[in-house]
């Protein structure tokens, strides 16, 4: 048989999260003895090109985290046309009407669920600090242009609301771009408009967004004891904050296991290609809240 | 005979300038009507109104007895008016044929008919006697050739009224003759022709009538050109008497100061050498494309040279760029004012000070605004530059006044040793020419070397102590003032030593 070649396509190749997924997929490749081709696919157009490219390289299948879940049908068709097996990771692919595509096995966690964990973490901390929820303002650093971003922050906000957090205290701070500086500017304005709150919490689509909110709060003298920000990702940006000598308003980050996603999906696909078994239709992994207190354990549990 | 073209009390005002202040005159079919006036008198503005580029602020324009209001150039073209502008208006990247037929390209089945375009333009060019390929890009042609393309473009509009705004300012002998012949043919065909020039000989040779402008007003219209004495024209125009415009005075000149040895580069043919003495005015004559400008640019470090040295007072002038030449005291006033001379959107003061200010900076970096302003004002006065104030953007000045500003830029140099003027009086009125000649002589009297490149033979002969003639990229002869007669110089300049009386050979433009 031909040597096995597997593609691993991710939507934001520069993100540490996807870099980690790739790294663990490489581990699998080395163990099982297949070739891994890593391609970043920032948009639908590049995604189509990448799939064609894989076919040209005579790959037999690919793992994909598509730039948008609605690209499902395009992925399915392109794979079929090129006779490639597909497994999706992180985001579950759906068809034009929003139904999950059954022919593509999936491993991941929904953005909404991660967001919920963020919200729950914040609620727990609010309770632990015995804050009066009416005196707490919540900043949602929003980047709704990105579907995942919206899902995550919506999950967080829903969790807050479910715990009785007053909806009126939740303030949207739309960032123009997804970097820290834009989050800073957006959060700064939110703080200006709502000087009345004693305590603050912040959520966002990633660690950088929350970091921006934390920095903006610091600029106004709102420090660790009055600020709880929980990010998503748990990579370097979070690690830097959590390892600062003094605690900051960056309370923690919900970490997801890139190891599981990167390693397991590629192994599953390998097995499928080599006839050693079909992957399960859907596997959902869980995130873990990493804080100053537990970061070592969490990292270990997540296999970092 | 009724006037075909009539201006009635036409006014045009710009901020701070009354370019035209109630001008009236009329031109007849079958007449060449000359317009004269010093720089900034409003001649070009008048043509721009005629061409639909400007709307007049007052007055009427009548064509064939009917009052016309042109909203755009297109309207004017439709009304049978063609204009050859003072600032050439061509598209450098397009070919001769495409430029000539711009806006009127022939088509077949909706596609360009390139063959036909080529053919009709080639025919026209041949008919008027211009030796040019319709497929050449304008960017690759000399200014004179571009000018001829512009003329061809206007002629091909087959307009009833054709206006020429200083068409000969960048033409030399041969093209000028072609132009004259054309103008006369058009007159014979009953067209109405307007002709602007600062060269009086041309006006006498071509025009039937003339109108003189000064400061945006009409001074007088002479219905019979031939009857007007030259002195009268000049004094009407500049408002003062001028006797000998060249103002040449015998002056002793010193030792060889500038030695050019074996200078070689892309557009000259082989190494070229010559010397200029301190206090000498050296004229360079040649037909268009003879390589004079290119040689001067090599001397000025403006183009890369492939060989040769330039010695000034015995020391080699550093190569590198114009900055080195300027530092050594060599300056060049370039021939193409628009492309190489003016900083269009900068002020008059800025254009004057751009180079000279380096001598007078605070801390090597900071400007001395007051001194710069004073210097600018001084030269505005000395050269009679017509501008509302020194802060005016130079592009808003009339062509001749722009030329004076560039001259001022170099005359202001305190360490001036060699002054190279490439077509310095292009587009300049008689009075100002006289001013410039005077200045050239003053500069020479200070012991500087002056090189004047000119295509106007009388000018070269009138002001030079010595004349060098170039032909086809090489120096082909040298004549001291005493021997430099018109015939002698032309004999050297024309290809293959043909006498000027003989018919001109076809390839002399290239």
């Amino acid at each position, binding site marked *: 048989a031909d040597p096995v070649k597997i593609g691993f396509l991710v939507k934001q190749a*520069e993100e540490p999260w996807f*870099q980690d997924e790739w790294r663990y997929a490489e581990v699998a490749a080395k163990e099982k003895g297949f070739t891994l*081709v*890593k*391609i*970043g696919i*920032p*948009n*639908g*157009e*590049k995604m*189509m*090109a*990448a799939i*064609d*490219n894989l*076919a*040209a*390289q005579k790959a037999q299948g690919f793992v994909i985290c598509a730039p*948008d*879940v*609605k*690209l*499902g*049908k*395009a992925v399915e*068709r392109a794979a079929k046309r*090129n006779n490639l097996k597909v497994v999706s990771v992180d985001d579950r692919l*759906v068809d*034009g*009407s929003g139904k999950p595509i059954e022919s593509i096995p999936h491993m991941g966690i929904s953005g909404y669920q991660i967001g919920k964990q963020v919200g729950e973490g914040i609620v727990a901390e609010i309770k632990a600090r015995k804050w009066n929820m009416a005196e707490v303002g919540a900043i949602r650093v929003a980047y709704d*242009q*990105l*579907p995942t971003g*919206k899902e995550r922050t919506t999950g967080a906000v829903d969790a807050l609301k479910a715990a009785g957090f007053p909806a009126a205290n939740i303030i949207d701070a739309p960032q123009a771009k997804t970097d820290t500086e834009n989050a800073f500017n957006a959060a700064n304005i939110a703080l200006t408009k709502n000087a009345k709150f004693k305590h603050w919490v912040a959520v966002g689509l990633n660690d950088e967004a929350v970091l921006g909110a934390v920095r903006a709060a610091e600029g106004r003298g709102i420090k660790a004891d009055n600020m709880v920000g929980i990010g998503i990702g748990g990579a370097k940006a979070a690690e830097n904050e959590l390892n600062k000598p003094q605690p900051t308003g960056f309370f923690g980050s919900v970490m997801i296991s890139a190891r599981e996603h990167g390693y397991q999906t590629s192994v599953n696909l390998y097995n499928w290609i080599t006839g050693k078994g079909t992957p399960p239709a859907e596997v959902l992994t869980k995130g873990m809240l990493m804080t100053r207190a537990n970061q070592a354990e969490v990292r270990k549990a997540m296999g970092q | 005979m009724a006037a075909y073209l009539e201006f009635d009390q036409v006014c045009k005002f710009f901020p701070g300038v009354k370019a035209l202040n109630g001008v009236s005159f009329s031109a007849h079919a079958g007449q060449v009507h000359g317009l004269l006036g010093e720089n900034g008198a409003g001649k070009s503005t008048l043509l721009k109104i005629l061409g639909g*580029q400007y709307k007049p602020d007052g007055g009427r324009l009548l064509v064939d007895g009917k009052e016309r209001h042109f909203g755009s*150039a*297109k309207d004017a073209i439709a009304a049978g008016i063609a204009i050859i502008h003072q600032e050439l*208006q061509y*598209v*450098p*990247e*397009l070919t001769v044929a*495409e430029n000539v037929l*711009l*806006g*009127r*390209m022939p088509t077949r089945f909706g596609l*360009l008919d*390139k063959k036909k375009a080529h053919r009709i333009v080639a025919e026209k*060019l041949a008919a008027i006697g211009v*030796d*040019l*390929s*319709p*497929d050449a890009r304008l960017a690759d042609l000399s200014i004179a050739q571009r000018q001829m393309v512009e003329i061809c473009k206007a002629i091909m509009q087959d307009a009833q009224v054709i206006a020429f705004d200083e068409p000969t300012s960048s033409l030399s002998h041969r093209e000028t003759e072609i132009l004259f012949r054309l103008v006369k043919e058009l007159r014979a065909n009953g067209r109405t022709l307007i002709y602007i020039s600062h060269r009086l000989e041309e006006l006498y040779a071509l025009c039937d009538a003339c109108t003189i402008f000064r400061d945006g007003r009409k001074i007088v219209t002479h219905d019979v050109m031939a009857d007007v004495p030259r002195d009268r024209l000049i004094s009407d125009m500049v408002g003062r008497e001028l006797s000998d415009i060249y103002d040449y005075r015998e002056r002793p000149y010193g030792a060889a100061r500038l030695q050019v040895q074996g200078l070689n580069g892309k557009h000259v043919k082989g190494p070229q050498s010559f010397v200029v003495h301190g206090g000498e005015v050296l004229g360079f004559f040649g037909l268009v494309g003879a390589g004079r400008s290119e040689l001067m640019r090599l001397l000025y470090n403006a*183009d*890369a040279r492939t060989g040769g040295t330039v010695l000034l007072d015995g020391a080699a002038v550093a190569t590198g760029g114009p900055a080195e030449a300027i530092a050594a005291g060599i300056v060049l006033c370039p021939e193409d004012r628009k492309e190489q001379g003016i900083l269009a959107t900068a002020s008059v003061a800025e254009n004057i000070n751009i180079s000279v200010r380096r001598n007078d900076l605070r801390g090597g970096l900071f400007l001395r605004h007051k001194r710069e302003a004073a210097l600018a004002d001084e030269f505005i006065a000395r050269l009679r530059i017509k501008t509302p104030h020194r802060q005016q953007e130079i592009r808003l000045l009339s062509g001749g006044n722009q030329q004076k500003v560039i001259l001022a830029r170099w005359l202001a140099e305190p360490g001036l040793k060699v002054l190279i003027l490439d077509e310095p009086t292009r587009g300049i009125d008689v009075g100002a020419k006289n001013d410039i000649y005077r200045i050239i002589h003053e500069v020479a009297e200070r012991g500087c070397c002056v090189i004047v490149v000119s295509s106007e033979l009388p000018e070269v002969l009138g002001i030079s102590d010595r004349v060098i003639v170039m032909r086809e990229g090489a120096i082909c002869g040298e004549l001291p003032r005493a021997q430099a007669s018109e015939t002698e110089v032309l004999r050297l300049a024309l290809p293959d030593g043909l006498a000027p009386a003989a018919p001109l050979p076809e*390839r002399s433009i*290239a």
Partner: protein
Amino acid sequence: MSTSPMNPVAAAPLVSRQWLSDYSMPLAYLVLFAVLSATVENFFSLTNVVGLMLSVAQIGMVACTMMLCLASRDFDLSVGSTIAFAGVLGAIVLEHSGSVAIAVAAGLGAGALIGALNGVLIAYLRVNALIATLATMLMVRGLAFIVSKGQAVGINDDSFIDFGDTRIVGLPLPVLVAGACFVVFGILLNQTVFGRNTLAIGGNPEAARLAGVRVERLRVWIFLLQGVVTAMAGLILASRITSGQPNAAQGFELDVISACVLGGVSLQGGKARIFGVLIGVLIMGTVENVMNLLDVDAFYQYLMRGLILLIAVLLDQLKTRGERR
């Protein structure tokens, strides 16, 4: 050419130099292609070459009109947004009307409107092209988000989706459409009054105006064409990816402009060659393709892309350098 004043000695090198200058980019590309075929595994295969062409189909289409736009000394940053908007709008209209024809008409109509708006702003209201098209870029992107509520709009109509998939003599339809664009716009540029006038207003707008060219109207037309072709590219993209994505094609405008400039179109206007643009587009696609074939690390891809862009223009530069003086 009996009238040519060219002197026979000078003519020979001139002609060959002209030839060199006209064909050096295609030649260089051919050499590059041959080298890559020999050295990069899987590069020279039908699937890969077709894949490569498919990957630049959208850029290719839009580059054709961008060429005209740049040639007339303008600039258009709004193409990326227009692609997204046309795709989203087409998908929504398709969803509601069920008619492919209406959906396509809506997409193209929107593109025409956006283009016309750009044109009017720039030609008649004399807004700086960079700012005008940056503004429409933002507004159109906003519209794409608004009409889609920020979500991708799925497409279920198979006849629409098939368009992106269908192959004729082995070539996917999008590639054929792009090829047709190159032919049509090549003719438009070189064989029509429209093309000549475009170059003229880019080379010297004042001269064009004085020669009676309706400069403003022409510029509006150029932008309008650009809008329509871009919308078409957007619809084709939507069909290929089976959905209209409001955040599709971000940064697309720079890719297109780079391809044009690589192909020798001058940002100063007045200069354009359709063949050069084709090569520019192919270079962009080939670089991307080869890097993926060679599994170049994502971070090093940035470096490579930059380097290759530089090398391409430097080569072109060296060539034209000789001509300059």
